[in-house]
């Protein structure tokens, strides 16, 4: 191929190359940024704090619900005796939909759903009650110990 013909071909090809590289870039970039923002938002919600809340039944369950029974709240959980609840407590003192629990990573927010009694460390829960690690949460006649489960630290054992 004569030199001039090659040079003209190279000049023509450069546009096609730019186009092809651009297509690849768009395909890769699509979603990467939004995925990044989504992951960051999720991490911020969890923060450096705990990953879940453990509710341990301490008293009031009688024979149907033994002491030491545990439930977990990772993000949100509806507490009650009804079928739609995330944490189902089959006990006469618990309403079908009793309370809503939301875990932010640093505190457990509680909100009453029915008029049935629920308290955090003795105080009746309002629209934005907060339970911390170690508090006692009572739902009807049942009382639970609230413990925050720390994030898993490493998958490695110290040798």
């Amino acid at each position, binding site marked *: *191929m*004569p*030199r001039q013909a*090659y*040079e003209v*071909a*190279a*000049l023509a*090809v*450069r*546009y*096609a*190359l*730019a186009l*092809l*590289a*651009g*297509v*690849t*870039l768009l*395909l*890769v*970039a*699509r*979603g*990467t*940024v939004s*995925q*990044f923002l989504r*992951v*960051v938002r999720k*991490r911020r919600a969890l923060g*450096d704090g705990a990953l879940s809340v453990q509710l341990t039944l301490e008293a009031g369950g009688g024979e*149907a*619900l033994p002491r030491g*029974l*545990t*439930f*977990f709240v990772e993000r949100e959980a509806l507490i009650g005796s009804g079928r739609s609840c995330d*944490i*189902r*407590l*089959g006990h006469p003192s618990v309403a079908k939909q009793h309370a809503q629990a939301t875990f932010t990573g640093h505190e457990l927010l509680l909100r009453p759903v029915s008029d049935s009694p629920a308290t955090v460390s003795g105080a009746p829960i309002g629209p934005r009650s907060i339970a911390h690690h170690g508090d006692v949460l009572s739902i009807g006649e049942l009382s639970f110990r609230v413990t925050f489960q720390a994030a*898993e*630290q*490493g*998958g*490695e*054992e*110290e*040798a």
Partner: protein
Amino acid sequence: MTPRQTYAALTAITAFAVLSLGLLSFQGGAFDPLGALLALAVPVILWFTVLFLTRTFEGVDAPLLIIVEFLCAVGLIVQYRLRPDTALRQLMTMGGGTACMIVALALVARVRSFMPLRWPIIAGSILFLCVPLAIGQWTNGAKNWFSLAGVSVQPSEFCKLSLVFVLALYLQRKCGRLAKWPLLLFFCGAVGVLVLQRDLGTAVIYAATAILVYFAATSDYLLTGAGLAASAAGGVASYFAFAHVRRRVAAWRNPWMDVDDTGHQIVQGLMAIGSGGVFGLGLGNGAPRAIPAYYTDYVFAVVCEEMGLVIGVMVLTFYALLTVRGVVIALQARDRFRALLALGTTCLLSVQTLLIIGGVIKLIPLTGVTLPFISYGGSSMLSSFLLIGVLQGVSVRSDDQDRSDEKRAALREREWLA
């Protein structure tokens, strides 16, 4: 990325590589069969890597693979254009790098604990780093490589891998500062050897990565600040201690003062980028051989000259996306060890890219490090592929994780029993 988008991206890169390599096979006047061979081999490696990995391991980050393969394709095209006789070697390194990546991926995904390996890693890396001091030769003011059976090996490239492993191993647990003394020992030893070899660019990469990963793991402002202060002091000290650092800084501040000597490389690079314009001169039409180190450190200037600002900026954007994907992988890792591992590898690659491209476009003083995946050089290519393999290994869903998911599901079942 959906499978359809993956196929589309692969097709685009294939067309990109075949078109440019096909064109370049005529650059000497007559048809060169090597160009056709490369145009055939690149798509094979490309499709095999992406399809094999995404089908074998669940959770492999396909966009990250595509970024790497695109950068490799650009690298191979530029190497074939610059020095056709070395292109075959670059292709073999690319294939070998892919194999290394798969091995690293499998190891990081499968091995349960790297903790017992920490002392062999530390001792072996420091010894390996010292080898060029004993049997290496001074080239371009540095003594950072040695020749083994005809193959030149640059240990500082491979020790990057040990750096991220040691960092992640010692920082995964939140414990006192004193318990991390082996990490400090390793870091100071490695950077000390690098300074003795006058491989200051790599020392900067190591230091930046170590400080960043340390801060991410501990949020310890005091020691991070101390590390930054020590690095700044080290930078100032190296300015006064080494004549070539003073020359580099002077050349960076005003390369036009001494166009024929100290400023020569920067001026040639800037003129190459400038003469390329928006769409470039076209592959094979430029005069890249005027730039010293045109096929290693200064390869970005060649890309800009012949493929134009458009592809230059796209290459930069690909590196930026690589960083974002690395950070996303780190944030989603299943434990702290793997999160720090992913963050460390991402830091290494992005700091290196920043250093060399910043140097080429006269944003910061020039340091002699390679551009990952594009520069010619076996050690650099293999270590970059190993780092990507580690990153992918963190991204992969392992059997372990499935089991812990099952355990969680079982727990949930029990909760609902009541």
